[in-house]
């Protein structure tokens, strides 16, 4: 009996060890013949190449490790913006899919069916190579919203210039802390006395007034730098000042948002439909308005069904952002597993680091989701 349990395990172990050993031996032998060495020392070397778009200070004299950081931050930037936008869009479309209004319902399902069935890479190519290339050159661009320009070279808009920006930030954090405490206090008060506070309005007003106070009393100031057109040669112009978003980032975010929002919309729809009719009827019978039913009864329960598959979609979005390598957006794969790998030749180390990074992000999100699942499950009791 014991043998039956131990034998398959030993066989599996031997099999795994053999395979890993075979690969490692071959890799070592191949690297020796080619004169390559295995090591991570290259991370300290200077990168010698510039990156088009970076959130932190970077140029070619910095190390490969810093280039890795730039790529990682760019990936996270796309992922976070994409997740926020896709969630908003997906929630709206998901709810619209259940609307009694025929036109809205059909439009929502048309959107879902259309964008879900076309490969993401094709959508990215379309937005970048076909749509954004048709934008006008800077000299022909028309003014949008008073200070922004949408051109083939990117989206230029006004940039904020802070004096004492950190003080403003501190006030902002203070406002958030106050809001959290207030909400906890209001909830306790409500459970004890049944008094309902207009939590939402008070929170919003706190969020707005306290940072604004910093302008009055702490010497914070905000001015804007506007993009101004400058001629570089007889036929090409550019904008100085202001803030520029490269078209690569726009195309990637647009494609990722539109694609992932379809899946999130389906999850939201399944979540709302999964609530038994009895819940809605019982809530209506105690006199709650349709809005209150949605907010207090349906959404909390629906969230339990919606969150796990949606977290999966967030993960997919983060992984799909690696398709940036197909257009020239400098994300982790393009900068590190692309340019850096080609310049240093350290394929195994670099691909290993890249995969480890993505694995860490996936595991982090999975852990977060497991923690959240456990938290809601307890409340059920």
């Amino acid at each position: 009996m014991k043998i039956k349990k131990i034998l398959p395990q030993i066989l599996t172990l031997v099999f795994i060890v053999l395979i890993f050993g075979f690969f490692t031996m071959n890799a070592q032998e191949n690297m020796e013949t080619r004169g390559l060495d295995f090591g991570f020392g290259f991370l300290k070397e200077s990168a010698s190449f510039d990156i088009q778009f970076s959130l932190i200070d970077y140029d070619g004299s910095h190390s490969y490790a810093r280039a890795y950081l730039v790529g990682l931050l760019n990936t996270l930037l796309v992922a976070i913006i994409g997740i926020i936008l896709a969630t908003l869009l997906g929630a709206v479309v998901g709810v619209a899919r259940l609307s009694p209004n025929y036109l809205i319902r059909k439009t929502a399902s048309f959107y879902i069916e259309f964008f879900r069935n076309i490969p993401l890479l094709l959508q990215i190519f379309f937005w970048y190579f076909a749509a954004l290339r048709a934008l006008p050159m800077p000299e022909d661009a028309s003014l949008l919203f008073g200070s922004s320009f949408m051109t083939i070279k990117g989206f230029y808009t006004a940039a904020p210039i802070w004096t004492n920006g950190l003080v403003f930030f501190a006030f902002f954090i203070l406002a958030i802390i106050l809001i959290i405490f207030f909400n906890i206090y209001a909830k306790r008060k409500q459970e004890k006395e049944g008094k309902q506070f207009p939590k939402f309005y008070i929170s919003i007003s706190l969020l707005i007034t306290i940072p604004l106070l910093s302008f009055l009393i702490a010497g914070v100031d905000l001015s804007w730098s506007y993009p101004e057109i400058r001629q570089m040669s007889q036929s090409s112009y550019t904008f100085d000042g202001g803030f520029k978003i490269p078209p690569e980032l726009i195309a990637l975010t647009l494609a990722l948002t539109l694609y992932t929002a379809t899946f999130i919309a389906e999850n939201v729809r399944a979540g709302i439909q999964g609530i038994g009719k009895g819940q809605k009827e019982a809530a209506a019978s105690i006199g709650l308005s349709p809005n209150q039913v949605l907010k207090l009864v349906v959404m909390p329960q629906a969230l339990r069904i919606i969150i796990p598959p949606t977290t999966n979609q967030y993960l997919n979005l983060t992984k799909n952002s690696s398709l940036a390598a197909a257009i020239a957006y400098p994300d982790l794969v393009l900068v590190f597993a692309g340019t850096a790998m080609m310049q240093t030749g350290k394929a195994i180390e670099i691909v290993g680091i890249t995969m480890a990074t993505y694995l860490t992000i996936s595991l982090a999100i999975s852990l977060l989701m497991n923690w959240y699942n456990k938290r809601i499950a307890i409340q059920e009791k």
Partner: protein
Amino acid sequence: MSINNFDLLKSNHQKKRNISLILGVIFFSVGIIDFYLNNYFNTNITSFLPRIINFFTPLIFAVIGLHLIRIEFSGIKILDSLNKNINTSNFNAVLSTSIILLIIFALPPLLNWLIFDANIAGDTKEACTGGGACWVYIKVWFNRFMYGMYPNAEQWRINVTFIAVLAFMAAGFFVPARFRNYLSFYYTILLPIISFILIYYIISGGSFGLVWVETGAWGGLSLTFMVSFFSLIFCFPLGMMLALGRRSNLPVVKYSSLSFIEFWRGVPLITVLFMSAVMFPMFLPEGTYIDKLIRVVVAITLFEAAYTAEVIRGGLQALPRGQYDAAKSLGMGYWQLHIFVILPQALKLVIPGIANTFLALIKDTPLIFVVGLLEVVGMLNLAKTNPKWLGFSMEGYVFAGIIFWIICFSMSKYSQKLELKYKTDR
């Protein structure tokens, strides 16, 4: 007297209702016509108004019209259903009108570009005289988009192989009841082997008098199908093994399956393909060289097997424990229990999930451009930079989009049908 309180048995109310209706229809039509004129005839009948209001006049008129039409029980059936569906409140009226205006704004130019102004006759770039899409470009490159760089004279071989494989797949439905038990064996083991042999000898060639065509020349939509097909049939048995391993009680087996699955699910497919192109040859003894296509299929198979394993595991979990207990009480061992009792039932449950995986697989095939294989999207990118055909990238993407959309949409509809069918079975 609000509109909603008509008591239609009174004749003067009826008159009021009729007036309201007619006014409403007039306003609504004015709104729509104004919008249409604004966009297509560049005339603006309300240009005397300030600019902001002028922009919104069609919307305002149409919403007023809908408001007037909104009679709760008008007695006219069509009107009632229209009101219930589109016009339940002012907010809904605004939304509906916006959608209608959007359709009027977008649909005619789109149809013009796609069909009415498009060119399809001719052979060269000069034949595209209209302002619309240049389908001549697609027509000229059609062979390349379907078959890649495969020599024109040999393309019949690809067609023959595909028909043969489809025939073999369909044959499974026509076997007499005697052989039904062996169907799963047929699909998971025999069919892959037969298909591989067919593809190796007919498409790749090199013997029986057929010219050898190297895998680098395969491409287009036929490559998409080949890669998806092989990845699917190989990832299925592997996924099954992994799912069983994940649920096993033996710690070594369980944790190695778990780490394998979590590893492949946590990394993006593009890095996996990159690894197979760049790193994988380093891990093989010097001098051995495995064909690029095989490496790609192996990489995609391992990747998709992890997702398939999760889907199958969901199916295994959904089976009631009673099945396991009953089978064990009949004296079945681990393998007998699974092959004859558990897996047939679990697989029925997960067919929609497998169909989803296949769909995701087809949508992931364009990524193989990183290793230099050119399927449909890759061929598109190649064609659009040909000096004789510059500037037609839009037509190419629309064409590829349509093809993929048709394939994926039909597959998802079919899988929904399957899901309904198998749901009622239980």
